[in-house]
């Protein structure tokens, strides 16, 4: 809480038009795959999953 260095580690999305280069992006075919991929990524990275509510999910280290 406060003062921690936050960082977007990856973006998982079902919409290719919503993301640009710069961060690792993982495309998912559908909402289920999106959930599964982001869950697996978050476990590997021990990071949190946040939903941007626009078909994108970001994996963030807090």
């Amino acid at each position: 809480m406060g003062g921690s260095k936050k960082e977007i580690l990856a973006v998982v999305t079902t919409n290719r038009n919503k993301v640009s280069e710069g961060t690792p992006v993982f495309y998912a075919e559908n909402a289920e795959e999106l959930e599964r991929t982001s869950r697996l990524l978050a476990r590997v990275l021990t990071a949190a999953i946040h939903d941007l509510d626009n078909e994108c999910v970001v994996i963030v280290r807090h």
Partner: protein
Amino acid sequence: MEYLFTVLSGALAGFLARWYMLRRDYRQYPSYPQGWAIHLFLGFIGGLIGAVIVPAFLEGDFSAISFLLLAATQFREVRNMERNTLTAMEATEMVGRGSGYIEGIARVFEARNYLAIWVALAVAVTSQIFDPNRPLQLVGGLVVALFLSWVLNRLMQGNVIGDIAHVELVDLGFEGPLLTAGGVSVMNVGLAEDRQTWLEKGLGVRIRPHGPDAKATLANIGQMQAIAHDVISMIGLYMDVGEQEFVPIVRRERESGSLVLAVIPSEQDAEALIAAVKGVPVLEGAIRKPLSSRAGQELD
């Protein structure tokens, strides 16, 4: 050795006072038994310093007194020691104490050694006044030691959250991906499955401050983190390592200055949660008293 009785009784009183001030509660800090051994020994040294000042003074040995006072200042190191230990252990905590809480704990440990020195000094003075009447020295020392330890310990006791705020249960909900507790958005939970877990197992409380002073005190990040840490150490945690979506979070309601806490405890017991929140100490470093200023009074 004409001062033996005075020195021994003073040192013993300081040691026992330090012992009396050691708490073994839910925090398990200082840890038992090694942490205790460290602090009891430091308390004994403090007691000895306090006790030896009296004969040194009576003998007119002022260089000895200077050295003793110099030695007493070494207790500053206690604060450093505690801070370093706790900061090093922070990475091993699922929910950290936060630097505000660590500073508070470190300060308490330093202060308690000084209290032990005061007690030892007072007992040594009493003993010397009644010298050489041994029974009177013993009884007088005992009375002074008990009274002073009790008073000092009482004066050093801070408030808990239950003293400065009202704690009530609130419902958890979601606005899109945002977890809300009593309408205050707390954090973004990305996956539907995790949102379901929050709704099923999670609990929320609102901490409503009594007045502007309490409001300003609660608006401290260290205090907020201390609440999350202490509640978890009292009622347990559901999350696993790295599962940041289940981290207990404290957030502030802008309008009222209330805090909300969203947490998934290991057992869903609302009564226990409220009792735990009420029992969290108010950090000395977080206390603010805006009402003591003219500007604050005009606002109220």
